[in-house]
Each structure stands twice: as C-alpha cells, then as structure tokens.
C-alpha cells in the first residue's frame, strides 16, 4: 500500500500548484501561454517546498502573498501593512525573485473602473514595498479588475477575498 500515500501527496501537490500557480490567469491550453510577455516573470511549477524558507511556496503560505482591501478602497489597512512588511523583509533576503503585483476587484463595479481600481491597489502595494526597500526594478504591476476572482459567490464572504493584491514571485530577477 505504498501507492496510496504517494497518490495523496501527488494530489496535494497538484492542489497546491493549482492554488498558487502564478500563471493561472494566462488563458489557453499552454501553461506558459502562447503570447509570451509573462514568460520572464512566471514560473509555472517551481514553487518549491513550502518547508524551505527560501521557496515561493513558503513565501505564499508563511509570509502571505496577498493583502485585502475594503470596498472601493486602495488604501492599505494596518493588517495589510503588516503582511507587506513581512514580504519586504523576505524579499530583501531573497533577492533573486522577480515580482508581479496583481490588483483585483470584486464584481460590484463596472469593468473599466475595476481595471483602474485594481491598478490602484497594485500600486499601493508596490509603493509600500518600495518604501520598505524593495527595488522598483524587480517589480511590475498588473490589474485584472474583476476578471479573475478567486471566489465566485456573490456575497461579501467572497467579495472580501476578491478585493486583493497578490504578490506573485518568479525566479529570474537578475537574469
């Protein structure tokens, strides 16, 4: 019965990949997308071992890769600042990672406004990380507006998780 634990591990690994794959917004069949662009920033599977404190998986899970925002706001909450301070410290000692900051909005808004709102949120995070010493040259922002919710119910329980900025890492800052 050695197969079963392996199967469980595999499923767990797949689930982890699915949750954290920074390329999850790249539509289409190819994991790295056909259009390029993100290629330099995105590492589909190299999240690493979450018990390795230098891995992306560790950053995502233990440092916290995202901060949440109140409705129609882009100002960082005290809790968000705490998470981002932790991100900045970690990024200072893990200087090889490139950073894309994704801004997202919930569905309670029009499409174009939400794109602009997501950009505001991403910029808030970027500005804070810069203020904490993270080099601007490592970072880019992108807004997905309301195009990529992580929760799909239509009430506040989901909306609150969708109003987010996610710090997505990949290897290759110095590359």
């Amino acid at each position, binding site marked *: 019965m050695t197969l079963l634990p392996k199967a469980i591990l595999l499923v767990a690994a797949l689930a982890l990949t699915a949750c954290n794959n920074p390329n999850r917004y790249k539509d289409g069949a190819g994991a790295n997308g056909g259009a390029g*662009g993100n290629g330099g920033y995105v590492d589909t599977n190299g999240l690493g071992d979450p018990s390795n404190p230098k891995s992306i998986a560790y950053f995502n899970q233990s440092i916290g890769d995202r901060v949440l925002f109140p409705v129609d706001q882009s100002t960082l909450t005290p809790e968000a600042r705490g998470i981002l301070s932790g991100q900045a410290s970690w990024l200072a000692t893990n200087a090889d990672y490139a950073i894309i900051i994704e801004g997202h909005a919930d569905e309670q808004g029009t499409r174009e406004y939400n*794109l602009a709102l997501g950009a505001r949120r991403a910029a808030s995070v970027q500005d804070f990380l810069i203020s904490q010493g993270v080099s601007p040259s490592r970072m880019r922002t992108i807004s997905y507006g309301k195009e990529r919710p992580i929760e799909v119910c239509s009430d506040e329980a989901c909306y609150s998780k969708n109003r987010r900025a996610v710090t997505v890492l990949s290897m290759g800052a110095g590359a």
Partner: protein
Amino acid sequence: MSFISFPCKPRRKPADLEGQSRPTYSPQKSPLKNEDKMRPFTSLTAALLIGLSSLTMLGLTTAAHAEINIDITSPVIEPMPFAVPDFIDEGGAGDYARDISRVVAADLAGTGLFIETPKDAYISNITSFDAPVSYPDWQAINTQALITGAVQAGGDRIVVKFRLFDVASGQPLGEGLQFAGTPGSWRRMAHKVADAVYARITGEGPYFDSRVVYVAESGPKNQRQKRLGVMDYDGANVKYLTDSSSIVLAPRFSPTGDRILFTSYASGFPAIYVMNVGNLKTRNLGEVPGTMTFAPRFSPDGNTVVFSLEKGGNSDIYSMDINSGAMTQLTNSPSIETSPSFSPDGSKIVFESDRSGTQQIYIMGAGGGEGVRISGGKGRYSTPVWSPRGDMIAFTKQNEGRFHIGAMLTDGTEERLLTASFLDEGPTWAPNGRVIMFTREGAGAGGQAGLMSVDVSGRNLKAVPTDGPASDPNWSPMLP
C-alpha cells in the same frame, strides 16, 4: 424611475422617409438617378441597389396620404399588426424566398412595435408580386401593414424586391425597392427590407442591417475564457475574431465598422489593440512598459482614439492620433478617469471620474480639461456613451446594491432608468439611437453573462441570442 418622453427630432411624415439624401421624389426621374440617390447601399458586398422603375411609379405621391405610422416616443404603444406572406419565388429562389420573408418578420416583430398577423389567418395569398393587392382581404383580418416581396436567384446573385402597403387606406406606402447581392448576404438584404419598412412607418432611422462585436465567454467565473466575436444585430452569422489565449475586453467599432479597438492581455499586460475587420490583422496601439491602457473608443472621424492610461496606479484619459501614434493627455487628476466617449460631432467627450469620491459622469471638450459634471442622482454613474443622435447619454448606474442601465439628456436632466438587475453594465447604442444593448450577468458561480437589449423608452427588454455566454457588446454603424 421615470419614463418621460425625450425631445427628439420631429417625426417626419412617412412620405419624406425614403432615402434621406432625397429631398423630394419625382417619378419622372430616370432609374439611373434613383440609383445615384441610393448610393449608401451600393457598397453592399458585390451588391447593387436599384430603384425599380416600374415600382417607382407607385411612389410617394400616393404614400403621402398613407395613414399608418408609429410614434415610438409615445408612452403607450399598441403593436401594429403586419403581414409578410412568403416572398414570391421568381426563379431559382428556393428557400431564400421564405427565409428572407421570415427574417423581415423577425426584425419587425423583434422591435415590439409590430406584431405579425399569423399566416393561418390569411384570407387571400400573394401569388404574384405584380398582381393587385386585395385590400379587403387584409383589412378583414385587421392587419395594417402588408409587405410583399419576390426573390430571384441565379449564379452568384440574389435579387430581392418588396413593396409596403398601408392596408387601411388601401394604398402603397413608399415605392417598391430592389436589392441585389450574393447568396451569402441574403440576411442583409432581408434586414434592408425590414429597415425600409421600419423607417417608413416609425419615421426613425434604420438599424437592422448592423453588426455587434462582443466578448464570447466560456468556462467558470474564476477562469473565464474570453474571445472576440462579431455577429448580426440579431445574433446570427457569428464569427470569432480571436482565440481564447488571452483575456480580451470591451471591443469597439470604428465609425465605419472597418476596425475594432479592444483591450487584450496578449502581451501579458492589458493594452489596447486595433484590428482590421477585413483581414483580422491586429496591432498593439503602442504599449508603454509599466503602464496599462484600456477603455478605448474612436473619434467620429476614425482618426483619433480616446482611452485611459494608467501609470503608477492613476488612470487618466488620453487621446492618440491613430496614424502617427502621437498622444495627448486630456485629464490630469489623481482620481480615476475612464470610459471616454465622443459626441457625434467630435467636439466633446463624456467620461466617468471618481474625483468626487464616487464614479460620476462629466463632459469636457475634445481637447481635454476639467469637465462639467452632469450626473446628479443617488449612486454611482459609469460607462457613459453618447447617443449617435447626439441627444442622450446612456450609462450604467449602481445604487443600493442594484445595477441599472439608464439614459439622460446631455445636460444630465431627464434621467431615466431602463433596467434593474444584479449586474447590468456597458450600454451601446443602435445606429438609430433608439435601442440600447448591454451586458447582464447573473449572481454566483452559475451566473452567466448575456446580452440584452431595451428600447430607450424602457420598453421591449429582451435577451439577444448568442452561442454562449457573452458580454461587452458594441453596436456597429449601419453597414456600408
């Protein structure tokens, strides 16, 4: 919510409608002259449009006495009964004769202004296009407008001709018209027949011979696949313009329908692209690294694009000369300025801004500036779109947890809400400025986006048929 009648152009008498470039009608004029006057139609792909000389003799001198008409601005409308017997096959028409008459009937009935008299009520039938109409037979079944037609097909050509009769007064309404085109354009010829009937009876401009570009959606809400589609205004003839490899948003036609602006994540980051509709060639409009461009629209002359550019988290409105790529910043504010839309004369731009704390609608000159706020009611106002008639601004409104599509005069007065739902957004005007199409999306994981249309009066709210979930419709101008 109020439903006040808007000021509008005085409704012309039906006699004045046939061909807006034609001030008067004179039966003595040669068919060639008529053809000249019909130039707006002549570029239909491989098509000709000719005034039928034999039919023009029946023309407007009699139609001036016609009595049927619909004032679509009146508060209550009793749909006008009409009959469209299957068009006569005058040789080789086959299924086209019936199919074309069915599209004509669907166009008219779809407006909510007309109701089709069922075929099984007919007392007499039309067996020849040129035979006299037996008016009493149509009066007896209470139909008011009778449309007869005939179709010939041969080789790579179909010819459709029709006449419209005012049953009550027992006379033709306007002259007969003939359209010719390739078999592939048979639906367009049907739409042109229906457009002529609609225009003669309502006094409004036509809109059936038009297309809609939109975003076709598939997949779950958290992994939505999006691609551009284009279809006839009634959902037929769908063609996909992109694959789903990148998120695409909010396509917008050029004033002649030859190009489409849209926002795509093709480079990995959102930016504006322009596509040639004829050959699908697409180019990036000039992506500046570190910025996001979105919400593009053409100017009425097709040479300028207005759009939002985001830099460092702040979105402002810019314009770009589409040929040279030269950009001009039109707004300069720490707030979000987006969704710009030109007035039809190109002199002004309506846009949304949250500078007051919430999204509201402003109008500025085409050269930029502060802008004057026009929205004044409760809630958030967004996605303003100037009517092609110039008289109104359509918008999305959010208030008390609901979304509405609405319209107001350009000074912000006479606001009326046309719809209400969990999520309505992104209005687009029909070419005649009388119908609005928009996106309606349902709540929750199973909530799908779809296209809806509604008259600017608030009447005739209905779903637009699409292959699957769809969003971000943009109505083309009348096809050339």
